[in-house]
């Protein structure tokens, strides 16, 4: 009986020690920033809460923000920067925002896991005097600075280009993302608006697929075998475009225009097939959305007026500018992008 007590006591002590180590193992960095007395020019404590950190797009965004933070640290504008990864758990993201409020962060960046569920937490942060900037995956709250792209415009731009490229007539396959997903629906809506102007363009098939290469290849192959005589493809995602183009190449069919995105796998294939007459227009969800959100938030926290909604223009990758984007030495699953020049960022955030 005594033995069990001893064991329990040992166990609790061990656990306690472990928890204490976990808690205190890392120096909290706030001691250094405690006695800043410079009013508005005080260096800021910045945190980024993201729903995912591991996908390649997020990794690139992470790197871009870190580089910019290093610059701003050099200018004395940022004192501390932390990344919080919710790993797909939206409740965890709420906890992260709350933790940042308690720790008196000055700026919170958010790439949201839900368009609605984070609103109360973010608005609480705003009420506590914290500058909150949301980018990429946007929320519905109007109390935070939102930095994103216009997904309808994405579809419109692609539809317009395809209509013109085909001289206003022909048969196309519409290759969309998953049904019921907001981004996919919005891009397709935009495309339909643009295609209305070309009444002689017929949509032979409307195919849905996840934004992944393998399912996309299967979905496209079956639609294409039913409609081998198409003149073009409206595709709204890079992996989808890569799947469509691969199918044409594998089956040694005539090249038709396919719209795309800055998915490196597609860009590589595009470059390779340009000599065979392949042509495309691609755009991107630019990674510098994160940098713009950071700059906007830092400016706002410093007292500047910043627009609450910042729509970032979609980049255009054409047959002529393809070479600036495609990265032969990088994996297919990456998203090459040119950084946005600082003056343009300043213009967007109203400096």
């Amino acid at each position, binding site marked *: 009986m005594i033995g069990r007590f001893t064991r329990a006591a040992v166990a609790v002590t061990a656990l306690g020690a472990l*928890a204490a180590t976990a*808690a205190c193992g890392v120096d909290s960095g706030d001691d250094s920033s405690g006695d800043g007395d410079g009013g508005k020019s005080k260096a800021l404590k910045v945190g980024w809460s993201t729903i995912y950190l591991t996908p390649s797009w997020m990794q690139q965004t992470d790197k871009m923000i870190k580089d910019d933070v290093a610059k701003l640290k050099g200018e004395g504008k940022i004192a501390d920067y932390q990344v919080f990864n919710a790993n797909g758990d939206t409740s965890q993201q709420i906890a992260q925002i709350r933790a940042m409020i308690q720790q008196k962060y000055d700026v919170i960046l958010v790439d949201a896991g839900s368009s609605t569920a984070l609103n109360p937490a973010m608005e609480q942060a705003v009420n506590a005097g914290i500058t909150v900037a949301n980018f990429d995956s946007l929320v519905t709250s109007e109390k935070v600075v939102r930095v994103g792209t216009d997904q309808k415009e994405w579809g419109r731009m692609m539809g317009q280009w395809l209509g013109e490229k085909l001289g206003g007539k022909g048969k196309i396959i519409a290759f969309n993302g998953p049904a019921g997903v907001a981004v996919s629906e919005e891009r397709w809506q935009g495309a339909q608006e643009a295609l209305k102007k070309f009444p002689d363009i017929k949509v032979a098939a409307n195919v849905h697929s996840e934004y992944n290469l393998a399912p996309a290849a299967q979905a496209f192959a079956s639609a294409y075998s039913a409609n081998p005589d198409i003149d073009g493809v409206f595709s709204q995602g890079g992996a989808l475009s890569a799947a469509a183009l691969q199918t044409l190449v594998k089956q040694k069919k005539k090249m038709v225009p396919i719209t795309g995105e800055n998915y490196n796998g597609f860009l590589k294939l595009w470059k390779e097939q340009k000599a065979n007459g392949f042509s495309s227009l691609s755009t991107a969800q630019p990674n510098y959305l994160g940098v713009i959100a950071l700059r906007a938030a830092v400016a706002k926290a410093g007292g500047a007026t910043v627009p609450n909604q910042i729509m970032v223009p979609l980049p255009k990758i054409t047959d002529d500018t393809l070479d600036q984007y495609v990265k032969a030495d990088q994996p297919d699953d990456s998203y090459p992008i040119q950084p946005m020049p600082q003056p343009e960022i300043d213009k967007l955030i109203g400096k």
Partner: protein
Amino acid sequence: MPDRVATTLRGNLDVVGLGALLVVLLAAYRHYDSELFTPASITILSAQFLPLILAAMGQSTVMLAGGIDLSLGSVLALAMAVFAVRAEDGVAVAAVLALAAAASTGAANGVLVAYAGLPPIIVTLAASFLWGGVTLVVLPKPGGSVPAGLVDAYNNGWNGLALPFVVIGLVLLLWKTVRTTRFGLSLYAVGGNEHGAYASGIGVRKVKIGAYALAGVFVGLAGIGLAVQTGSGDATIGAPYTLNSIAASVLAGVSFFGGIGQMRATVLAALLIGLLTNLLLFTGLSPFYQLIMQGAVLIVAIAVKTFATRERTD
């Protein structure tokens, strides 16, 4: 007299151990957040932990009856969606609908387990896709809305009262009452020794269905709590709760084989897991190391707990 204290202690080894650990965590937490014990902090934290605590109670109920529920996250999201979609027409009606949805999905799981004689892990895995699909039909994209007054009262306190705290107290009271009924006793009996329970005249199937339905009520409450906390519904938000609720139950000492475990311990364990993840956010560790730390602490905690209480199963 000391003997009696010792006996009580022995009987509650899980609760005492977890309680001690909780004290350590709270002390560490206070190091980072000096306002931890203010009413405002307690309200915010209890609002945040309520869904996990209730979900873990649901999971423990099923585990006590010798089962497991992998569809818990989907059912939670379903209740959340039903509540968020209907809340504008009246919170009470919406809550009843959400609870009814969760309890009946739970009962349906129970029927499949009890009558089809299929392993719970398979049945509830399949059910997780089923209920996940139903949730998407109810709420295809994030939305719905909860009256702002309620959201505010829940998250920031109502006349200085931490509502989530009260809810947890009430639910524990409910459990205490259930536990003393014939059904409550049968639950432990069925989980501990199904054949023995059957031989002594307990309706094993009914008890199992009842256990899954009761778990559905707890999970439904968790879903409503999450909807009120976030002011909306989202079909994808429930998934992580499945494994977190199992982790909390195991940490609390609820046996995978059924029949052993205390609900008080489950509440403490869920609280511990919530506090631990929050605490790691304060440490300034890089995100990937936070995940490693979280996993390591859980493994060590469970291993130590098993080591400390091993005699019980000898």
